[in-house]
């Protein structure tokens, strides 16, 4: 009996070990199951890099070519896997270079932990070399941040960081560690964080709210669902599918929600928003019950709020209470984790088909097909269209690929036309619209899911914002497939200039370098396609390649993305041309 008790105690109380703060950082990462992190070294973070060197058989540090690239790579890693992405940088410029990626992760709810070095604590506030107040700078764009000035604080703060980043509505966390705290030795012991007294990650789902939602849905004649990334973040894909199939509800997605339900599913009615599909945009303003699940009524999704779904009763399934009634006033709010609340909803729903209502979506789709999709996918113009490139990629990857898109026209085309069979397959910068996101995000995605085909779709503009990450792809041998759709314009801005600024193309024309030579300079195989006949073979060579591959497709220079909801217009005023 006695020996058993001793054993148990030993198990509970891990022995303390005297190690440095910097080693503790690495040990914390290992304890959290981190096997890869992205970053860039510098003075204030060198002690941690020294430990990363010693622990290189356990944890893989990927040297990106810019700290922004490190954050996007960490995001790509997190978005495809659901695990926390980790980025690390030095103080000052290293830290400030992380900010765009942190802001992106904040607005797109991506779990990420960023670690920054800081000047020694006795130098804080003295404008020391490479000192920036990164805590103040990052405060509005982090879910949580914390400065550590003593080694002994490291385990607790790191544990909190990982807990906060991935619990509830995920988000980015920044931990800033002074150099002296990295050097200092202390008795290390790691305990995972399980709760924080001031933080309730998942609000309680009121049974009455689920019942009220079920009643509205059961009574609806013309129900419609818009789902967002909440389904993916909550791992609620199966529960969601069961709900819509039972209740027969046409379901549309925001770009952050794409791929949670296969594109080919008969209840998938496409994308809502500024360049979304015609039917769901128009019928948002005709449905009688609008069910929003894990989405936040972004202005790019709703258009003019004063004319948004005014006729409908609104149900909002949401994990973050601050999103409820933020933009659209709800009739029933179901707080909680989507997986759990949808599970509770399912048995309360009546079986339904809504065949006539469904037909409306089909009719409007036929119009959109005729007016837009047909020409996008099977162009009659001589120049290649972005849509036909997507169609070819769909065909050759059989819808199994993860598509990582950048920001602009190609992004909208990619989201509109990519065919997804699997969840977590649409990785794009939604809320922040960060050009330069895709190339580094694709690196992280491929490393987190090496068995999946990862295809980055990028514009010639955004490509040049983080083009240096080709160096990371080369050095770390990441077999991503890179497709640049080159229209020699900042296409999306040019489209707005054409439509709303009388074609005054202010600073949107791009004189581009030879992208093939650049890729080859990084020893990445590269092909350029300028003619339709070359497309199939080029895509096939790219997909067949076991290594990284660069494909430039020269597309029609002045094509526009439609449908389009002009800014300020109502969602149902969506234009087809």
């Amino acid at each position, binding site marked *: 009996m006695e020996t058993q008790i001793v054993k148990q105690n030993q198990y509970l109380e891990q022995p303390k070990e005297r190690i440095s703060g910097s080693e503790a950082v690495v040990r914390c990462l290992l304890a959290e199951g981190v096997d890869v992190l992205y970053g860039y070294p510098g003075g204030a973070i060198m002690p941690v890099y020294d430990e990363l060197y010693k622990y290189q058989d356990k944890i893989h540090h990927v040297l990106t070519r810019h700290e922004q690239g490190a954050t996007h790579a960490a995001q790509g890693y997190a978005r495809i896997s659901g695990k926390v992405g980790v980025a690390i940088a030095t103080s000052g410029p290293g830290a400030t270079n992380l900010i765009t990626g942190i802001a992106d992760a904040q607005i797109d709810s991506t779990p990420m932990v960023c670690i920054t070095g800081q000047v020694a604590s006795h130098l804080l506030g003295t404008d020391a070399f490479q000192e920036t107040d990164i*805590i*103040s700078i990052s*405060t*509005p764009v982090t*879910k*949580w*941040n*914390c*400065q550590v000035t003593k080694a002994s604080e490291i385990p607790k703060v790191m544990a909190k960081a990982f807990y*906060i980043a991935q619990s509830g509505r995920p988000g980015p966390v920044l931990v800033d560690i002074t150099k002296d705290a990295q050097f200092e030795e202390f008795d290390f012991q790691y305990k995972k964080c399980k*709760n*924080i*007294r*001031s*933080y*309730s990650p998942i609000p309680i789902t009121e049974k009455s709210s689920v019942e009220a939602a079920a009643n509205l849905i059961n009574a609806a004649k013309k129900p419609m669902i818009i789902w967002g990334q909440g389904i993916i973040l909550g791992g609620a894909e199966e529960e969601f599918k069961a709900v819509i199939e039972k209740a027969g509800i046409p379901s549309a997605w925001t770009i952050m929600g794409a791929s949670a339900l296969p594109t080919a599913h008969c209840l998938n009615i496409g994308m809502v928003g500024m360049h979304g599909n015609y039917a769901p945009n128009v019928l948002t303003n005709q449905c009688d019950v609008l069910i929003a699940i894990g989405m936040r009524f972004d202005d790019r999704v709703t258009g003019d709020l004063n004319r948004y779904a005014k006729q409908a009763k609104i149900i909002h399934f949401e994990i*973050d*209470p*601050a999103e*409820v*009634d*933020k933009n659209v006033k709800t009739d029933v709010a179901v707080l909680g984790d989507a997986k759990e609340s949808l599970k509770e909803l399912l048995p309360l729903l009546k079986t339904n088909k809504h065949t006539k209502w469904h037909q409306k979506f089909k009719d409007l789709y036929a119009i959109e097909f005729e007016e837009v999709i047909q020409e996008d996918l099977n162009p009659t113009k001589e120049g290649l269209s972005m849509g036909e490139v997507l169609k070819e990629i769909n065909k050759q990857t059989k819808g199994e690929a993860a598509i990582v898109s950048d920001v602009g026209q190609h992004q909208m085309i990619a989201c509109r036309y990519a065919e997804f069979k699997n969840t977590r397959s649409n990785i794009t910068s939604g809320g922040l619209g960060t050009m330069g996101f895709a190339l580094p995000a694709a690196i992280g995605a491929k490393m987190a899911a090496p068995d999946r085909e990862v295809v980055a779709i990028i514009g010639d503009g955004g490509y040049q914002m983080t083009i240096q990450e080709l160096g990371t792809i080369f050095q770390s041998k990441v077999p991503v497939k890179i497709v640049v759709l080159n229209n020699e314009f900042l296409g999306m801005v040019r489209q707005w200039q054409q439509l709303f600024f009388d074609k005054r193309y202010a600073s949107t024309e791009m004189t581009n370098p030879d992208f093939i030579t650049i890729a080859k300079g990084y020893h990445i195989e590269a092909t350029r396609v300028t003619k339709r006949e070359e497309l199939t073979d080029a895509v096939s060579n790219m997909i067949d390649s076991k290594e990284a591959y660069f494909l430039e497709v020269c597309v029609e220079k002045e094509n526009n993305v439609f449908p389009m909801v002009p800014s300020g217009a109502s969602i149902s005023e969506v234009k087809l041309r």
Partner: protein
Amino acid sequence: MKKELITVSIYTENFVGLLNRVTTIFTKRHVNIESITASKSEIENVHRYTIVVKESENLIEKIIKQLEKQIDVVGAFYHLEGQTIFQEIALYKIDIENVYESKFKEIISVNHARILEIEKKFVVVEKTGTKEDTDALYNELKPFGLMQFVRSGRVAITKERMNISEILHNN
């Protein structure tokens, strides 16, 4: 929407940088802070900020949710005028030369103010009350040569119960 004076009470952990995080929630929405007070609260190790803003109730409801969302914020509440009992404290520094006028003494007593400190060159007057009260005294003392004036933020006790202990207990 109608703007009114609203008292926001925020209970937080006592961590460095948290006040900054709290104020960014207001500045993000372009809301100006009229006054702000930080102090300990009735619960050990829990701090309390009292922030007064002139805003529409609708917007403040949204700000409250954003405040509550912050990890180290335990709870946030707002109250309209009449739902709190509040005071502000004001200090007035006045040239000693002028205080011998009999009118001065009368003003102090009529306003229920008090002389806090008498130094060689000046006296310091203290008055606790509403903003209107301390403003009124300000106007009356101005002719005596106000060398300095300072007023604290509002401290407020709410009539309604705020369930901080429960939140701390349940998480």
